[in-house]
Each structure stands twice: as structure tokens, then as C-alpha cells.
């Protein structure tokens, strides 16, 4: 089956995205990594939807894409606001909310 390796690809993509979120400090890159994770999920949906001949997975992909677009818009907005405030896009600099 041509699709049998696709979940594996998706898992690798997801892991790359997750590790990126954890180790990168630039907010833009973190947002990009989140996109990567979301698209890994989308890939999983698509491959299983194809395999199981079900439309539900495809529909879910569109939902995820919509949410991801909204998330990217809000996330970039926050990044810009933060950058204007402190001339930095480093998430470790944004640490006012602590004890």
C-alpha cells in the first residue's frame, strides 16, 4: 500500500515540530513548528480517510486548516505586539507571568 508509510512520515513531522517548539526561542519559528505539527496531524487524517474510504477525515482537515489560519493570524499579532513592546521576538524574554 502506498499510504502505509504516510502515518510514519506524519509522526516524524510531528516530532520535528514538537522538538522545534521546545528548543527554539524565536516566536516566529515556534509558530512555524506549530504549523508543522498541525499539518502532520492533517496528513494522518488524510491518509486514514483515504484508506478507510471515509469523508470524515477530509472534513476534519478543513477544520484544522481554518483553525490553523486563525491561530497563525492571532499568534503573529501577538508576536508583533510583543516585538513593538520590547524589540525582541524571543519567547524567553516574555516571562512576566511568574511568581
Amino acid at each position, binding site marked *: 500500500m502506498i499510504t502505509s508509510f504516510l502515518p510514519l512520515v506524519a509522526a516524524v513531522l510531528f516530532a520535528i515540530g*514538537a522538538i522545534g*517548539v*521546545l*528548543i527554539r*526561542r524565536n516566536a516566529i519559528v*515556534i509558530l512555524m513548528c506549530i504549523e508543522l505539527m498541525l499539518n502532520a496531524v492533517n496528513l494522518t487524517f488524510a491518509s486514514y480517510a483515504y484508506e478507510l474510504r471515509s469523508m470524515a477525515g477530509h472534513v476534519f482537515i478543513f477544520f484544522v486548516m481554518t483553525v490553523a489560519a486563525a491561530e497563525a493570524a492571532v499568534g503573529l499579532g501577538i508576536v508583533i505586539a510583543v516585538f513593538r513592546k520590547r524589540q525582541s521576538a524571543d*519567547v*524567553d524574554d*516574555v*516571562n*512576566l*507571568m*511568574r*511568581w
Partner: protein
Amino acid sequence: MLSLLYLIPLLPLAGFVINGLLGKRFLPKWAISAVACGTVLLAFLLSLGAVFSLNNLDSVASVRGVLEVDPAAQRVTLTVAQWLAGGTGANGAVFTIPWGFTLDPLSAVMLLVVTGVGFLIHVYSVGYMAHEEGYWRYFAYLNLFMSMMLTLVLGSSFPVMFVGWEGVGLCSYLLIGFDYPKDSAADAGRKAFIVNRIGDMAFILAMSWIFASLGSLGFTQAMARVGKLAPSAAAGIGLLLFIGACGKSAQIPLYVWLPDAMAGPTPVSALIHAATMVTAGVYMVCRCSALYLQGPAALTVVAVVGALTALLAATMALRQNDIKKVLAYSTVSQLGYMFLAAGVGAFSAAIFHLMTHAFFKALLFLGSGSVIHAMSGEQDLRKMGGLKKFLGVTYPTFLIATLAIAGIPGLSGFFSKDEILWKALGHENRYGLGGTWFWIAGVAAAGLTTFYMFRLVFLAFFGEGRMDEETKHHIHESPKVMTIPLMVLAVLSVVGGWVGIPKSLSFGADLNRFEHFLAPVFEPAAAEEAHAAASLADGSMAGHEAGSGMGLEYLLMLATLGAVAVGFVLAYRFYRSRPEIPQRLAGRFPTLGNLLANKYYVDELYDAILVQPYWRLCDFLSAFDKKFIDGLVNAVGAFTEVCSQFIKLFQTGQVRRYALWFMLGAIALLWYLV
């Protein structure tokens, strides 16, 4: 008239409401006095009317559920409203308490004494309190007291009586502490209230027991069913009721509050702590006479406590220097007499003495109030003397009251005291405690009473004045509004006893109208008494003629008079002709002297065995609360803080750190689920 019975307690209550709400701001003094005295006078007139219509009950028609008339028992019960309607008891009895008032010969006597003497004292107070702060407050409390006392007397069931019982206790507390900015007055009020609580607790327990075993709390119904009660149960109930009576009527061991209660204004001492409230216990015991006769053990306890109180309180009065304290111990002692009478089954004698005592003791207190008034507030007998020539009305009336309480023949106290002593001697019980002992205690108390009363008279009215010049200059007889009640009470103190003249003194004519009047209430008691007298005749006086009983009665009267004479002569020698004797005696018997002067150290004893341990318990509980309970609460707080110290380490503010934990959490969850 009888259907207006409910107005008798209600009128003074209206006076209380008017004076209490409007007295401070809107009413002038004359209006306050008019409302206070007027309502009590109306209550007195209504009582007179009601008592007189008790004579021809046959013409009064019963109204079912409202006015129940029992001509045979001379009893009328007026039900105003349903009060408590509870469930069904374990024995199937339905718990319903109507708000009812009963008028029978017993409550009639109390009714007339309370409203009559109460009215005189109200009038007297107008003069006595004229210059005091809180005039409206005083009369409002006094009216509330009258209302509660009348509820107590007229109540047709134990709970209604208990309402009055608690109400008079409250008024007693309020009026003892009338001068509340003074610590001593406030403390005395609290002491009276707390000591009374002990008795009230027993009263409540007795009520519960009565309902559980007799199925009703109405006097008429409960007393009618007393016969089916086991003697031990009857004695148990009787003892609990008697503990209640001990608290209210200041009997050993709960008498300690009454001497302190003298911190209240003097008319209050006359009304509440001499004439009416403190006799409520005697009234209650007499009201339950059938119950007590069913449990004779309780009756014996009543007699023993009464006799002991009569004797010991009389000795405590011997060395008091406060004019009101002497009278206070005298009251305790005379109340002991009444309980002695009730305890030997002579209930009508107890009520008789209650009535005469109300007259002469109210007079003594009001007279002492007049003396204190004249002395610019001085109460110490050692600083009085020679007041005879200044107080033209107070002195003779006070002397009459003294003669009456001493039991000089012809005055009221003689007849009632004589009847009690005669009944006490004739008393026999199954505990081998012969009436002779009761009689000896009574006669000794009579002698002591004469001694301390004449000591008071000699110290206050005779000899040289020992007050300072300033006070001496101000001595004046009290205004008419105070002296007229004194005169009325003096007349009553003389003639009050004439309603109960014993057979032996009326040449065989049956003039003891008082006993006949009360007979419908105490019929079973009378039967028991006759039995006791018969057994006495069988035993100690076997073989004598019936007339010898009368000869014995003369002999007893002579013996009592002898004791009285000894008391008088000793008082005369000690405080008139040879004033150095008391000092010498105190020097010779220092232990006894100190014992008497300090009232047997009973207050100190109570302090040591009750109050101090209680304080220590409180200290312990306070420490327990502060150290243990608070410690527990603080430990919880400290634990929470330690935990949060640890957990707050996670809140770094770094989003990537949160993401890491989030992810680890997600992995852990997956691990767990899959």
C-alpha cells in the same frame, strides 16, 4: 368578671409597653407614674372582682373550650388561645398547651397579694425613685414584672407558669442590675440570673418527666392522674421541681443570690425579693401538693431543707451590718418556714405564712427604704441610731412589722408561724425524722428572728445617732406618697393574720377561714394531714383526751413565745442596755463570730469548689483552643504554604517550559491509556 381574667396579666404588660416605648422621650414623670400605678391598680380591682365571683360559681355558665367552671373545686379555667400544639408523645399523649389562666382559691390568694402589695410598692416607688435616673426604665421593668408574676400565678399549666417563672427571673435580673454602671449591681444581677438557671434546668426536666409519665402538663389534668404514679417517680419529679423552687425561692443550697440581690433599688427588694417572686417556689410546691403527697420522700426533703434554711439563714442575719442584708437573710429564713410548712403537708399554712410575710416583709423593706432615704443613701446600721425622733411614720410602722415578724400575739406573723409550728410538731413521716426536730428548728429560728430584728430596730432607731453631721442635718421623714403605703401595709400586717385564727384561740369557734377557703385545693393534703395527726394521737399521746391536743397547742404557743421573749431580752441587753456585750462575746468566741459574720463562708466555699474550678476549666479550654485547635488550623495553612513553595517553582513564566510539561503530560497520558 371571670371572662376578663386574661386582662389581669395583660394590663401591666400594656403599661410596660407604653412606658418602655414612650417613657424615655415623650412621657413626663407624672404620666409614667400614672400609667405604671394605674394599670396595676386596675389589675388589682379586676382581681378583687374575679375572686369575689369565685364564691358563687354555680351561676357562671361554662363555655366549652373557653371558660371551664368547676364549682366543686372552686376552679375556673379561661383558655385564651392555643399556644403550643405539638405531636404525639411516646405514651400516646397529645402535646397541646393552651394559653390558659386558672383561678382557684390558691391562685386567688396569690393574685390578691401580688396585685395588692404590688400596687402599694408601685405607689411607694413614685416617691422613692423620684430623683433617680432612668425613671421610665424602672417603671417599665416593674410593670413587666407584675405581668410575668401574674402569668406565673394564673398559668393553667406548667409551661405557662414557666413563662412567668422565667419572666420574673428576667425582671429580677434587670432590676437588681438597675444601677448597672456600678459593677457590684451588675455582678449581683448576673449572680441571681445564673443561680436561678440551675433551678430552671431542674424545672424543665421535671416538666418533661411529668409529660412523659402523666401525659399532660395542665395542672388540673396532671394532678388528677397523679395517683397512678409510682411513689419513687413522684418523688423524683417532686425533687426536680423542688430544685427549681430552691433557685427561685432562695433555699439552701441556692440561696446565695438573694443577699446580693439587695444591690437593686429598695422597693424592688420589697416587691420581688421579699413579697412576691421569691415566694413563687412555695406557690409551685403547693400547686403540686397532690404530686408531693404521692411521693412523700420528696416532701421530707422539702421539710428538711426548709427547716435548715430557716435556722441557718436566721443565724446568718445575726451579724450583718447592712440594714437590707439583715432583711434579706430574714427573707431566706422565712421562706424556709414556708417550705417547712409545705414539707410537713401543711400547704395552707405555707400559703398563709406566704401572705402574712408578704405584708410585713414588704413593710420592713419599704421602711428600710424610707430609712435609707432619710440617711442620704447610707445602709450601714453602725452609722445609724436615734432615728426614732426624726421618722414619725416610718418608726411606728417599722416597729409593727418587727413585732409581726417576731410573732407577737395578735399580729399576723403570730398566727401563721404558730400554725406552721403546730403542724410541724404533729408531723410524722416514715423516715423516723419526727416532727419534734422540725418544731425545735422552727422555735429556734423564731427566737433568732426576734433577736436580729430587734437588734436592727435598736441599732437604727434607738440610742445616739452615729452618722456624721452632714447626714444628720439632712434627715427627714419621707413624703406622703411613701408613708401612706407604709401605713396601709402596717394595718395589713396587724389584721392580715385574723383570717386564720386557730381554733384554740377562738374559744372553739371555727374562725380559720383561710384554711377553709383553700380547702378545695388542698383536700387530699388535708386528708393526709388528718392521718398524720391521728397517728400522732395513737403514738406519743396515747390515752389522752381529745382536748389534750388543744392543751398541747397552748403549751407550744407558750414555748414559742418564750423563745421570742428570750430573743427580745437578749437583743435589748446586747444593743440597748449593755452594748459592750457583743464585742466581748465576739472576743470570747472568735471562731463562731467570724463564722457568722462571714455567713459560714458559703460564698467563699462556692467560689472555691465551683467558680474557681470553672475558671480553671475555662483557662484550660481557652489554652486548648489557642494551642491545639488554632494549631491545627495553622498547621493546615503551613502545609499548604510548603506545598505551594514547591509548586510555584513550575511557574517560571517561560512558555517553552510550559509546553515541555504539557507535552510530557500528554505522553504520560497516552502511555497510561494505550
